[in-house]
């Protein structure tokens, strides 16, 4: 939005109208909240609360016109599963309407189309030149019949530059035990979950009614991926896995509560077709920096994994639940952020009795399409206070990320439905 205004200002022909344009510009200037919306940010950044939706806002996308589309976990009181927000003043926005009667997680837009997922299907809507959905009640069903067993059920979605769509189908299990999450229960041989879940499936973005038989199991051995994004530099799909939990609860003689809190890492993977990240047979130990054999499948906390499993591209603290991944391509933020990854960590619940952790947006620097250097916490204190974070009782839980046309970073919170916008105040 702002960029357009600048560009017009540079055109001499537009100078005549510059007065009114200037007025427009000041009106649309993004103003950070005095307290930066309660967030702790690096120097030079500011944040504002764009809107309070009161809904379980999961993933989010912004059109080039600045319209926000937000996927709700459950339809709201009006029965709408997708919210439409239009920019008002000062960088804020208001809900103007909603559509889609289904809950879910995934949403993204490309020029001309908006894609959104329920926990079983993926739908496509048409976007007009103003970024408006023209067929809100009659979307095309692109993918259907994906497994939903009310566990890791969110069907997060992303698209490459060649017309393929990638869908997470999460494993309906913690570690493929004979009895899920039961103390001492061992893993099912040849884990059957992997036939229809526990991986990323690839489909065509423009073909109707595709189901398992029409798609490809692009990568397997991924327990649950909520955050994923296409990296244009590497021309590769990157995903964030939610690692398994309850190592101590289920195998107390092998893991103490501290190890259970710190293992395994939440991993970022750079995927190629046919990759296997190893779930449920393997987990990644971020203290030893090794792939380990899972206790359900013969592991004892010390045995390294054998087999041809993918090495993580990067690793993050256990159980912090990466719910969104976004490669930043904007120019608003300083150079170091360009083509790097923002990751929204929803925050943990399964680290007790150790303090809970997460509830922040992290930044992972990238170079030439690969993670390069240490990750850092970028936007902190969604929890409201360190005490609320350690108790696992945060005020807000970051869940979705999107880049605005001006390079702002939008963050959703699925606890209270707050939508944040983070901006860089140049100079």
């Amino acid at each position, binding site marked *: 939005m702002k960029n357009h205004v600048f560009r017009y200002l540079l055109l001499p022909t537009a100078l005549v109208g510059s007065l009114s344009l200037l007025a427009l510009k000041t009106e649309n200037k993004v103003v950070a909240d005095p307290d930066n919306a309660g967030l702790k940010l690096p120097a030079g950044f500011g944040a504002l609360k764009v809107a309070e939706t009161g809904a*379980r806002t999961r993933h989010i996308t912004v059109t080039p016109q600045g319209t926000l589309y937000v996927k709700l*976990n459950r339809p709201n009181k009006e029965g709408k599963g997708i919210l439409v927000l239009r920019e008002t003043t000062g960088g804020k926005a208001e809900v103007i309407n909603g559509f889609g009667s289904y809950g879910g997680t995934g949403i993204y837009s490309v020029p001309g189309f908006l894609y959104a997922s329920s926990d079983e299907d993926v739908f496509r809507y048409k976007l007009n030149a103003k970024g408006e959905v023209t067929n809100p009640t009659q979307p095309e069903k692109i993918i259907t019949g994906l497994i939903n*067993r*009310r*566990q*890791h*059920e969110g069907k997060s979605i992303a698209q490459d530059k060649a017309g393929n769509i990638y869908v997470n189908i999460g494993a309906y299990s913690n570690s493929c035990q004979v*009895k*899920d*999450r*039961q*103390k001492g229960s061992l893993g099912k041989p040849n884990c059957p979950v992997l036939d229809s879940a526990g991986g990323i499936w690839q489909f065509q973005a423009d073909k109707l009614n595709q189901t398992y038989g029409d798609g490809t199991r692009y990568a397997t051995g991924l327990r649950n991926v909520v955050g994923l994004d296409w990296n244009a530099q590497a021309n590769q799909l990157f995903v964030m896995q939610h690692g398994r939990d*309850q190592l101590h*609860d289920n195998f107390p003689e092998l893991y103490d509560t501290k190890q259970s809190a710190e293992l395994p890492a939440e991993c970022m993977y750079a995927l190629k077709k046919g990759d296997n990240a190893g779930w449920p047979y393997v987990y990644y130990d971020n203290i030893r920096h090794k792939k380990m054999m899972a206790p359900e499948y013969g592991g004892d906390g010390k045995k390294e994994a054998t087999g041809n499993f993918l090495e993580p591209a990067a690793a993050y603290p256990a159980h912090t639940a990466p719910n969104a991944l976004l490669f930043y391509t904007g120019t608003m933020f300083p150079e170091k952020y360009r083509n790097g990854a923002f990751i929204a960590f929803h925050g943990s*619940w*399964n680290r*007790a*009795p150790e303090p809970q952790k997460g509830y922040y947006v992290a930044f992972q620097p990238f170079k030439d399409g690969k993670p390069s250097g240490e990750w850092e916490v970028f936007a902190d204190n969604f929890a409201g206070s360190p005490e609320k974070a350690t*108790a*696992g*009782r945060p005020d807000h*839980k970051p869940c979705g990320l999107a880049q605005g046309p001006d390079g702002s970073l939008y963050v959703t919170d*699925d*606890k209270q439905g707050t939508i944040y916008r983070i901006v860089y105040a140049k100079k």
Partner: protein
Amino acid sequence: MKQILFVVYALAWFSQLAAAQQKTPPKVKPTTKTAAKLVAVSAATLTAGKAVYTQNCLTCHMADGGGVERMNPPLNGTTWVLGDKTRLVKVVLNGLEGEDIDGESYASVMPAFDALTDKQIADVLTYVRNSFGNKATAVAPAEVKAIRAANKK
């Protein structure tokens, strides 16, 4: 005579109204509350119950019993915790999956805890029914024993 009858009716109506107002939260069967006054819960039971809770339940239902949004239900004030004891004991014996809890669905599973003894289950449920703001009758080991015997699936 008529007047006396009226007074009796009026009294009955008033006491009903008062009883209805006492029901907090309204979902809970009134019997739990009235009965709770009759049964004292010993400190030893609560201590033992807390230990079982910390060992087996805390990970998912959290230290404050508040659960985790959309994942694990809270244990404070639910109809399952405060209501029918047979149903409650069976949740622990058999685990639970795919059930809505007071109108909310949860995207995780509760494993079975049939390996716990009758006393451990009685203690932990008594603790849960008298913690996190809950107030309800104790669960006795004999009750768990009977429910377990009838539970053979």
